[in-house]
């Protein structure tokens, strides 16, 4: 069976989109081949991509779909024959079926005997099917950003299609897409190859032929070549290594067809600039790899991945060009760094009065003052609860936190706001606690980030965000649906993470109250945070939705406690006793709800003299003993043990439901039994509302 190859030649495709498009083209091609019965089982298949091409190669494709025999039913026998002679109806059916009348069969149906013919549905050739169907699959590939290029706008694609090559074995499959008809011609590297097209002999020779024209179409081969070259080139510097950066390796792999690595240098004097700035310039602006010494300290070198083979002529030229560009960028950074320092952060506080935060919430100067007050309140709570904190540092950091917005360096490298402020604070001799808090104020910015290093930083970051959130809510500008223009959800996610993952003894209600919200705002804030907490537990802590619901039902104010409770529930939820108890809790809740609907409101106290059945007496005793044990364990946050105590109640609960009819016809007995259930539920639901746990299915 021949191999199949499709190559789509394109103008440079954005690096960030290549991997997923390559995978999608493979999936679509294999799906089509399977659907059209052009492959047997799971064939061996490969996919390739470079900035200028996407390709897929499938081994062992059938050249022809299998023929299918179908039985078609004709006229009834009594119409088809008159006195044993075929009528025109029979002859017409035979003609249509391509057989003589004598070749027709008779079949019996519930309606009588009918003529039938076996007809052969010929399978189409693979070339025919692929030419017809594959263009639809190509057109359906998802791209994050599409464009039109041909007049009349017949199709959208990521970039203009330049050529198509499509082969089944030695034969061309002449499919057409975007005005191009596939042939066997392809192109090599833009510069290293001749620029003239060349012919692919067979799918099998594709990779090797491209390699001969300076294109490594296999992404993994390119990635390995780059990694090896990075290692190799770095070896020229003693005790140095390139700084690992998977995302950057990925980016340069998708930017090259024939990668090579070049080592460049910069003057050591630039190392006086903060490493954060140097690395941002190299990585984000130039796609250069940083080089570090054996202690992890930045060394005055960089590595750039070229899309051309380097030789003794090109190496010094390309090196010189890249070094000049980097020098210019570093010079800019140094110019800003020195210029900004002429006005220390403390003198920039007043400049914040001219920077609007939001038109109804005032300037950044006003925001900073509010944040300082909020941070002060939070610090007071934390200190009262025994947390060691530098209150003065928090106030100072809060007032200076946004001053870096007025610096040229932040205007140039907006992604470094906060970090730059922290660096300036340190360099201007402010206490380390202040500088670090400023530096960390935007942490965590994403799920991958860590939380601030110090409690001062954690408080500053929390205060800044809750000021924004509460301010926006006050103005009625809360997120709705997919609209969250001020990224308030992300801000709230960060607060949730800080409260859950830092050692700060601060409650969610402390954070919300610190902004002294009006009552309706407070209600909306609590609901908003409940959503974010739910999200955090599910996405950040990997908890199942029912566990999240159960744990949140027992309180969301103390987030570290909430996480501990949820984790404890997850740890025991598989045990049989726990599931049985959860089911029993659900039953108790149902009974109480139904009773409530009928007007049966249980008294708050269980009257032990009214407990008649030994089973209910036993439950009253065991549940009450369990409740005090749990209370003690909860104080120690020993939720694992507390849940074991609850699970151990299973025999007495089971026994209760086996022997006792709660809805007794006698009013006082019934009320007392409802009171017992109510008390048991309340006492035992302080860790989680177990009735929320999904027990079946």
């Amino acid at each position: 069976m021949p191999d199949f190859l499709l190559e789509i030649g394109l103008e440079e495709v954005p690096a960030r989109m290549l991997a997923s498009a390559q995978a999608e083209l493979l999936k679509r091609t294999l799906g089509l081949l399977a659907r059209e019965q052009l492959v047997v089982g799971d064939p061996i298949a490969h996919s390739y991509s470079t900035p200028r091409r996407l390709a897929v190669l499938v081994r062992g494709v059938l050249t022809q779909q299998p023929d299918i025999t179908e039985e078609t039913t004709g006229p009834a026998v009594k119409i088809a024959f008159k006195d044993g002679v075929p009528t025109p109806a029979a002859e017409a059916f035979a003609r249509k079926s391509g057989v003589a009348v004598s070749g027709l069969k008779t079949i019996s149906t519930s309606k009588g005997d009918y003529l039938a013919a076996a007809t052969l549905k010929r399978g189409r050739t693979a070339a025919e099917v692929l030419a017809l169907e594959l263009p639809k699959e190509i057109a359906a590939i998802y791209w994050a950003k599409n464009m039109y290029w041909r007049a009349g706008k017949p199709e959208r694609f990521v970039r203009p299609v330049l050529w198509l090559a499509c082969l089944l074995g030695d034969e061309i499959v002449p499919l057409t897409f975007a005005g191009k008809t596939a042939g066997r011609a392809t192109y090599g590297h833009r510069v290293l190859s001749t620029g003239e097209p060349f012919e692919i002999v067979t799918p099998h020779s594709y990779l090797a032929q491209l390699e001969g024209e300076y294109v490594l179409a296999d992404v993994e081969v390119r990635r390995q070549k780059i990694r090896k070259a990075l290692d190799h080139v770095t070896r020229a510097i003693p005790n140095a290594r390139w700084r690992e950066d998977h995302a950057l390796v990925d980016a340069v792999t998708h930017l090259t067809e024939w990668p090579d690595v070049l080592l460049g240098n910069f003057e050591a004097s630039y190392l006086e600039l903060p490493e954060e700035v140097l690395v941002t310039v190299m990585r984000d602006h130039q796609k250069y790899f940083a080089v570090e010494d054996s202690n992890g300290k930045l060394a005055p070198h960089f590595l750039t991945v070229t899309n051309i083979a380097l030789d003794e002529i090109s190496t010094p030229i390309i090196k010189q060009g890249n070094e000049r560009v980097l020098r210019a960028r570093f010079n800019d950074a140094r110019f800003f760094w020195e210029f900004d320092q002429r006005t220390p952060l403390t003198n920039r506080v007043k400049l914040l009065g001219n920077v609007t935060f939001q038109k109804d919430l005032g300037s950044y100067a006003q925001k900073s003052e509010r944040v300082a007050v909020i941070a002060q309140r939070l610090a007071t709570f934390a200190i009262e609860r025994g947390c060691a904190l530098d209150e003065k540092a928090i106030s100072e950091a809060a007032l200076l936190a946004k001053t870096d917005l007025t610096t040229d360096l932040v205007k140039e490298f907006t992604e470094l706001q906060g970090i730059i402020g922290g660096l300036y604070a340190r360099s201007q001799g402010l206490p380390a606690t202040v500088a670090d808090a400023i530096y960390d104020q935007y942490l965590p910015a994403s799920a991958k980030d860590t939380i601030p290093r110090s409690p001062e930083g954690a408080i500053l970051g929390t205060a800044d965000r809750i000021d924004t959130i509460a301010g926006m809510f006050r103005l009625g500008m809360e997120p709705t649906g997919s609209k969250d223009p001020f990224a308030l959800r992300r801000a709230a996610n960060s607060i949730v993470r800080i409260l859950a993952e830092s050692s700060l003894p601060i409650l969610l209600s402390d954070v919300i109250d610190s902004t002294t919200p009006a009552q309706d705002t407070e209600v909306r804030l609590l609901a908003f945070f409940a959503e974010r907490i739910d999200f955090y537990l599910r996405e950040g802590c990997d908890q199942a939705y029912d566990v999240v619901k159960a744990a949140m039902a027992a309180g969301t104010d103390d987030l570290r406690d909430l996480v501990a409770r949820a984790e404890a529930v997850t740890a025991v939820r598989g045990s049989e006793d726990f599931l049985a108890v959860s089911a029993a809790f659900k039953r108790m809740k149902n009974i109480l709800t139904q009773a409530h609907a009928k007007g049966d409101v249980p008294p708050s106290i269980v009257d032990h003299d009214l407990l008649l059945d030994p089973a209910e007496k036993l439950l009253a005793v065991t549940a009450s003993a369990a409740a005090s044990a749990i209370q003690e364990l909860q104080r120690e946050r020993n939720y694992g043990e507390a849940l074991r105590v609850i699970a151990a109640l299973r025999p007495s609960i089971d026994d209760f439901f086996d022997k006792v009819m709660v809805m007794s016809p006698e009013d006082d007995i019934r009320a007392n039994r409802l009171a017992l259930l109510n008390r048991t539920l309340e006492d035992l639901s302080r860790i989680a509302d177990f009735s929320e746990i999904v027990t079946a299915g």
Partner: protein
Amino acid sequence: MPSVVEKKKALTFQELLFTLQRFWAEHGCVLQQPYDLEVGAGTMSPDTFLRVLGPKPISIAYAQPSRRPADGRYGENPNRLFRHTQLQVILKPPPERVQELYLESLVAIGIDLAQHDIKFEEDNWEWPVGGAWGVGWQVMLDGQEITQFTYFQQCGGMDLDPISGEITYGLERIAQFLQDLDSIYDIVWSRDPATGAELTYGQVRLHEEQQFSAYSFDYADVPSLWKHLELYEAECLALLARAKEVLVEESPDPLQVLRFPTLGAYELALKCSHTFNLLDARGAISVTERVGVMARIRNLIVGVAKIYAEQGRLTAAA
């Protein structure tokens, strides 16, 4: 130390301009003169912004001095300018293999592609104030961005068909690259063929950078600028309102349709845009105000684009 190209052979700034203009003229472009009004980029010249609208094919190239008041550095920063020069090429529709054509233009200015690292990296262009965007690349040469390459998709809030290809060369950066210099001001602008005497970019332009930086940052009178902005805006709006009456189907006065000064309205909108940039450089626009003023200017520019397209349709039909 080998140089990018041998120094003697490296083109002067003015030779670079001639060479690129000649190259594109030889490939069928009409050479237009720079637009004689302040613009922030070659894209804002009506030769790009308005001509990409409508069905009429064009091939046009021009150098465009581009003013960005906030980018001025009093001539003290070797890599930043208040006013830089772009060479703008507009191809509607873009020919197939337009990238190869572009690469040939690099060869024409003395760049041996086999000895350099060239990458087309994704860089999509967007000018929200003009309701315009496109997809494309920044062309990187040995780590230096030398060209912005864009396939326009929308302009003035309208879908384009056919689309246009835009190639914007940053002439200072390319000259700095060719001549292997750390400072823009050291670029050799011209060389006297008789004496070999060189004139540098700094000798030609430094005083402009010094004075215009000072004007933009320190002298420009903020209340006057606001007044200018309001006057230009009011006049532009009045023209847009008139356009509604004049640019109608089967007008009794076709000449009036033809002569309606859409281009005049566009210049007023450009004046507003530049005035806004000056106010911005003066630090006179708060973050909040910025959004509002930009919306006002967008209203003008998109409004002009719409009447330009309408006028083109009416006059083509006539």
